[in-house]
């Protein structure tokens, strides 16, 4: 099964990347953008989806500073 993990900075944690993007966008003529956060995307094939939370806790995310969200069964991107 193809799964997708979204990893984002925990609420309240400084997100300098998100800030940098938010400040850059208006200069490019894009307005009305707020609350930008930059995180990581991990996509993978897993045989046993029940392993995903463990993988996130132990490797994919840093639970101290990041939240993660698991999306199971996404369409494969070649």
């Amino acid at each position, binding site marked *: 099964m193809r799964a997708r993990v979204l990893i984002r900075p*925990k*609420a*309240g*944690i*400084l*997100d*300098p990347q998100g800030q*940098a993007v938010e400040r850059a966008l208006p200069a490019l003529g894009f307005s009305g953008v707020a609350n930008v956060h930059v995180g990581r995307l991990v996509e993978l094939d897993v045989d046993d989806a029940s392993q995903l939370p463990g993988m996130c806790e132990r490797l994919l995310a*840093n639970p*101290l*500073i990041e939240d993660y969200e698991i999306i199971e069964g996404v369409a494969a991107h070649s």
Partner: protein
Amino acid sequence: MSAAAQPRHRELGLTDREYELILAGLGREPSDVELAMLSLMWSEHCAYKHSKKLLRRLPTEGPHVLVGPGENAGAVDVGDGLAIAFKVESHNHPSAVEPFQGAATGVGGILRDIFAIGARPIAVLDSLRFGEVADSQRSRYLLEHAVAGIGHYGNSIGVPTVGGEIYFEPSYEQNCLINAMAVGMARHERLTSAAAAGIGNRLILFGALTGRDGIGGASVLASAELGEGDAAKRPTVQIGDPFAEKKLMECSLELLERELLASLQDLGAAGLTSAASEMASKGAVGLDLDISRVPLREADMEPFEIMVSESQERMLCVVEPDRVEAVLAVCEHWDILATVIGEVTAQPVFRILRGEQLLGELPVALLVDDCPLYDLEPQAPSAPLYRGGDQRIATDATPAQALLGLLASANISSRRAVFEQYDPVVQSRTVRRPEQADAAVLALPVLDARSAAGSQPIPAIAISIDGNGRRVAVDPRAGAAEAVYECAANLACTGAQPLGLTNCLNFGNPEKPHVAWQLSEAIDGLAAACRELDVPVVGGNVSLYNESPDGPILPTPVVGMVGRLPDARHAGRLGFAAAGDRIALVGHFNPRRDGSELAKLQGSAPAGALPAKDVAALRETHRLVREGVRSGVLHSAHDIAEGGIAVALAECAIAGGIGARVRLPDGLDLFGEDLGTAFIVTGSEQALAGMTLIGEVGGEALELEGVLNVPLSELAAAHDSGLPALLR
């Protein structure tokens, strides 16, 4: 124990007696904000309550000292109107929790101390301690992430990381040490104090927004009210933003260059509370601070959170009212948020306001000076602190096997895998980078076409950082002194004369008598060695309570030393230079196996004391090497440190890419250690007249006559692959 089970002041780390002193000093109960502020200012970290009395034993004066302990960093005179500011600081506990961000923000914090006193940071060094990497997945993880964090911050901000040291010992398994040293340069007149001055002057906060970062102990003030769903209100790990600090640094230096500031201070531990109260204390003034003006990252922060937040990349300055506009304009140029948040007042009282509302009103002295200082109760332990480790080299190994084993061992192998992750050359002054010499060497004047063409000397500084906890554990007084000798020896190898040192005292819980004894002995050892070598202490840091359920860490004083050499063109190198050069052993060398690397790797517990030093001989040896390097008659110089003379010779051969043939004096222990006392130097036969000649440079192997003969390629392979193999 739940938050409600004991009085709040205890939850905040204050003893009952301390709390009584606070009540007496205040004449009433403190408010929440006040209690948060007091508990932090009276913490070990800010008040040095268990170390301050001992630190008074360190010599702090000398002809070159411009700024001694007490300011954000110390500074020494290097001539030509230039000052070098430097300091080492620990970030051990945050790094044990989150090594990448902990180490990164450690670098960020020490850099702010340097530019807070008006100096442009020109170098970073790091001193790291982890558990035994060969056995510990966790130590590998911590090492990898801490190194990445240091590199991330230093590389991104454009300050070269020019040196450092790493040791692995089981006692650091749960409590790693991450110490970072920063060095800066300024013209004398640019050195700036943190003392607030000028009644009516404005207090400006500039830099990053204030969030809930690292609120730590004080968060118990909120925890009583925090429900399950309030995760967002919990304190958070400090995240470093080197990009923000790069702008902050340039902005701060420009503000000082334009003479717009009355004083400048960085925000570190205990955030606004400590920065502002120390500015007030130093200036013998008061402050009014309006927290409603502090720009926040999260809207719903409590007043105490604002006052103790440890959000990174922030500075405070005091500015005359008619210069405020100019200051804000410079900040705007650098894209730095700056806000007037308060004012200097005559009464030495720190008032916290929210608009018109008075939230707290504390005498500055109560915050900064009145925390009681404790006498320790040192008691020598009955059992040795260090009891030996696992055997990794057979006790019947041949000399060649022992040498190769040492070269590949965790504590001696090449640090290339680490230092290749650091930029050592940015700013264009690095004359000696890692593994080229025993100390980093940085040219002071700008290097340009004129300096390249001219024959004018190019003054330079050399920097070294050192401290071997295992040897301090064997003998705290002698071991701490050895750290000073070894730093000075490293400087001598580049031709530099020590000007001053900084130190970081990493110890366990000082309330335990045997830890108190280690601390007291180590400080005495440092103090004695500083006096012997005429090197004053200009600053430092103390990190206590480095403990885990397995007990305290090895006592680990780390020494960072800065010296001057008259001409960068004659900076020394450690590698053998040319075939045919003669090799000499200089120094009053008294090597012993006890406490040595080989003893450790052969699993034997050290017995007795470290070798006694003949200090007069040591001074004379350092002078001889320094002068020889400066004049150019010595072609290479390397001090004999961990692993003894065999390892030192191998290191000279590997670094020079050329072998040697050596005949050692009879009875000399190949692997015994006596740090800081002796050197391997090379030069022509006349240049080495009067020294103990032991061999000649040349060939493709290191041959110790009658003892071992190992091809250079094999030595280099062991040395180079040691750490990567352990990290795999």
